[in-house]
């Protein structure tokens, strides 16, 4: 009962806050209360026992709420991140004139994000997912700079594309499902004529949010321009919503989706490697992190793809995916929140602390990262793959390490050297380090570093995590990190030695330029086409005809009248009579 009440509160409280924000009088109060946004959800995450169900008939398409194993993991990470980020925002945004509006969008986005972890039916999931997606636009374009608006444009286009694809998939499922619950999804797929198609569509649809290459275009643009807490949430929590979408809508393990699986794995592995390269060559610290996210989600995609391909491996894969999701969320959020802190102080201790979650991310031994990689590898290990997946992933881990090195080096640089972007308006020199600014970051760092200790507990309902303490695992986890560090050091030395060398740089959003050119061409072709108006042409044609024939008609009539005044009429009369006579006899 209390659990049910908690569940209701967890979803109601954000809604209430968002609604209250709409009322001008309450706005100030709401802004103060904003950090409590996710607290009920957090409490639920820790307290709620799995498989808790609550149905709200009448609302929307009779909404179903509940917490199950997988949902709990995402609920926890979401609630944690939101609590920390919004808390952080309060002081991060102190100087910002548009602080309130930002909070408003934050609340709406949070409502969506938290809501989608709590619902148990596809339609409501889509509802909250859409809310999150579109409200987040306000976060991306917050600064209204040219970059921000461009990023916003790309973001919204991709978002709409994603929503549309998800909608199509939703049609496919709902049409055959007995009801809208997630429980009914597998049965729906079982009776589908083309389950593979639906699965692929959904994979891509949620892939936009999950930063699946090549649908990742918005990520490297949105992150640098959005205020840092927003970036943290985008990369930490919202990306995971896409992953949750995969897990909820595509019944991995029920059947084998070869097409979708191969797609996911290929794209995933490509992402892990390519994103690492592209990211290392970035100049903006937040862009680097964005690419790191893309690369990390590559791992997740690989895992999910494997699950789609090999139903037997699915349970382990799902577990691995969940671990990845949670630990990446925490680590990435911590890395982002470090940036404003760094703007306040660049003492070595701080930089080292900031780097720690990076190591977790890279999968250093005895971290949750290592645990995640172990889970992934052990799951993959059961099968034989055309490509050395194992090796590739380790290489990717090296890339991750390099990314982190790049991150730290950029973080260490004086702000003046950091190109001016939305994240630090005009490279403002320093921030005042307040509790509100530091504490959330510190908390996240702590949680992420000791992740290995508590994640198993969180994910217990999904299965037993391999404690990655065996020497093999340790070695397997250690060498990529070590290699990465060495390479990074080498790079640093080279740079010291030959300052003249310039690192080639990749434009943020790599292939985006191509896409944009294509879009422009398409528009220039499409616009004239859209101007064709058959219907109206018909009307115009009629008027033209009228104008043309009218005069002729008058002339004909006049001529006939004149003729009829003379013998012609008589002749006509006779002709008529003759005709009639002939026609009558």
């Amino acid at each position, binding site marked *: 009962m209390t659990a049910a009440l908690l569940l209701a509160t967890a979803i109601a409280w954000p809604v209430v806050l968002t609604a209250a924000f709409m009322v001008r009088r309450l706005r100030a109060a709401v802004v103060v209360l904003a950090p409590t946004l996710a607290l009920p959800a957090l409490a639920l995450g820790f307290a709620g026992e799995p498989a808790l169900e609550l149905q709200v008939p009448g609302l929307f*398409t009779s909404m179903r709420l509940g917490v199950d194993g997988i949902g709990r993991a995402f609920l926890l990470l979401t609630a944690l991140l939101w609590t920390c980020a919004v808390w952080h925002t309060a002081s991060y945004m102190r100087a910002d004139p548009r602080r309130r509006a930002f909070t408003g969008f934050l609340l709406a986005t949070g409502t969506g994000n938290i809501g989608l972890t709590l619902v148990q039916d596809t339609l409501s999931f889509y509802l909250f997912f859409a809310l999150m997606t579109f409200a987040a636009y306000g976060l991306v374009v917050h600064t209204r700079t040219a970059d921000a608006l461009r990023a916003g444009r790309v973001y*919204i286009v991709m978002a*709409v594309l994603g929503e*549309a694809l998800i909608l*199509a998939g939703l*049609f*496919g499922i*709902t049409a055959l499902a007995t009801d809208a619950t997630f429980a009914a999804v597998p049965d729906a797929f079982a009776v589908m004529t083309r389950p593979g198609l639906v699965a692929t569509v959904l994979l891509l649809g949620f892939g936009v949010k999950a930063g699946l290459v090549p649908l990742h275009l918005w990520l490297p643009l949105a992150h640098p321009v959005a205020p840092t807490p927003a970036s943290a949430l985008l990369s930490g929590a919202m990306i995971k919503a896409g992953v949750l979408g995969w897990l909820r809508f595509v019944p991995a393990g029920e059947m084998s989706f070869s097409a979708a699986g191969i797609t996911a794995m290929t794209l995933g592995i490509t992402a892990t490697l390519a994103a690492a390269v592209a990211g290392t060559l970035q100049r903006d610290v937040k862009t680097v992190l964005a690419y790191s996210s893309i690369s990390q989600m590559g791992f997740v995609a690989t895992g999910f793809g494997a699950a789609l391909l090999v139903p037997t491996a699915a349970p382990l894969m799902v577990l691995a995916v969940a671990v990845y999701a949670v630990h990446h969320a925490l680590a990435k959020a911590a890395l982002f929140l470090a940036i404003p802190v760094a703007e306040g102080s660049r003492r070595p201790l701080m930089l080292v602390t900031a780097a720690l979650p990076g190591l977790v991310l890279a999968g250093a031994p005895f971290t949750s990262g290592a645990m995640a990689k172990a889970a992934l590898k052990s799951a993959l290990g059961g099968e034989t793959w055309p490509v050395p997946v194992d090796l590739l992933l380790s290489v990717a881990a090296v890339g991750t390490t390099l990314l982190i090195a790049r991150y730290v080096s950029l973080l260490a640089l004086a702000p003046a050297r950091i190109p001016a972007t939305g994240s630090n308006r005009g490279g403002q020199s320093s921030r005042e380090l307040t509790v509100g600014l530091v504490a959330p970051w510190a908390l996240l760092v702590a949680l992420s570093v000791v992740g290995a200790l508590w994640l198993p507990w969180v994910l217990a309902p999904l299965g037993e995590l391999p404690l990655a303490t065996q020497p093999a695992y340790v070695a397997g986890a250690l060498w990529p990190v070590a290699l990465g560090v060495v390479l990074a050091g080498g790079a640093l030395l080279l740079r010291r030695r030959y300052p003249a060398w310039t690192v080639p740089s990749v434009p943020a959003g790599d292939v985006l330029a191509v896409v944009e050119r294509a879009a422009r061409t398409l528009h220039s072709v499409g616009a004239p086409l*859209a*101007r064709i108006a058959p219907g109206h042409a018909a009307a115009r044609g009629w008027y033209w005809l009228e104008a043309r024939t009218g005069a002729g008609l008058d002339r004909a009539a006049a001529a006939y009248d004149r003729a009829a005044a003379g013998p012609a009429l008589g002749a006509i009369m006779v002709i008529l009579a003759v005709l009639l006579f002939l026609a009558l006899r």
Partner: protein
Amino acid sequence: MNLIMASSWLPLLVLLSSLVPGLIIVFLEEERVQLRTALNITGAVAKIVFVALMLYGVTHGHTYAWSLPVMPGLRLNLVADPLALLFVALSAALWLVTTIYAIGYLEGSPNRSRFFAFFSLCVTATAGIALAGDLFTFIVFYEALTWATYPLVVHRGTPASVRAGRTYLAYTITGGTVLLVGIVWLYALTGTVTFVDGGFVEAAAGGAVTETRIIFGVLIAGLAVKAAIVPLHGWLPVAMVAPAPVSALLHAVAVVKAGAFGIVRILYSVYGVEYATLIGAAQVLAVAAGITIIYGSLRALAQDDLKKRLAYSTVSQVSYITLGVAIVGPVATLGGLVHLMHQGIMKITLFFCAGNLAEVHGVKKVSELAGAGRRMPFTMAAFTIAAFGMIGLPPTAGFISKLYLGIGAVQAEHTWIVGVLVVSSMLNAAYFLPIVYRAWFEDAPTGATMGEAPWKLLVPAAITAALSLGAGLFAAMPVSPLELARLIIQRRYGL
């Protein structure tokens, strides 16, 4: 008991509740504002009451019928079956808000008596179309609607509006005549015109397939003009010169809806979608609707004039209804029928808001919308809700219609329709989101006038916006349009 006693008169009363005020207003001088307003509002409220009574009765199993012999074998039949109620409820509800809006919109302008007189006649005709129990009654009110609307279209009296009126009539009268020929032909073939759930053509003339095919084509061609199916949609964007309440009427309450409703009737009560599919007519219609949906959206994309953009959006949106009923299967029909209502409430909101923008700040173009959110927050909030509805975002009404259309398409295994729906959703987003963006994320030009619209213009928009949201958010509630549509489907398919 009382209900049952009044039953046979209720349909007639629904008509009279707007006809009588209209006829009185004709003879009213311009100055009698109070009386005129009183008449309008009383009539509108009365209509809603009557409709509500019938709604109650029908949900409890009554059917209301009133008829008047016109010619041997043909009667003026007013029948309130659930399908009729769906439409009449929509028009009744929207008539009230539109009347309030029009009163506010036309304050102090000339020829208001004429305007409101024809306004009422227009709604009477619409109610007649909705309640028509056979094709004869239908065509009678259908043609009446054409002429009752003309004075509203040309209301401003400018050469431009008179030209628009000419185009309007050129299209609609031709359509009406074609429809009449089709109806008479069908009558000559089958000997009956009375609507039957599931259609009567197969039973009466199933043998003459070719002929029924041709007749179907003729009927639809006639109706497609008002339903603005490409390439017969040309009048709709041109009619934009009319005052905002009229546009609202054209797009949401009366004319376009009459066309769409007619198509629904043909498929639902005359041919029966199964038979129409059997003779391959429904598929063709569905394709036409699909083309219209995409084409309308593309055209809307290119418009800078706000009302023109909305007009093309109507062209696209109304064909959802056609698409829905042209697909075999209960769910698709459900989607089409419920969209009949949803499109109405959403589109009327958009036009109210467009009217407010033009009326209060003289903003008529999309390019002038910068900062509109700041300038008139409530209006733009309503607009945004409706726009999201048009895109089909949850939890708005638009999502519900789109969802059921999509499900129906999949169940009928028309994957291409899913494609159409998805593409059109994206296109809708492409031409609505920029408006929302300009309104909320751009700053108003310096020296732009501020200030919200007067309440008479604001309240209607607020109400309809609330409806557009509520119809989706509480779709599962027993009183929602969805449930009403479900009632029809159950009656038809006995689910």
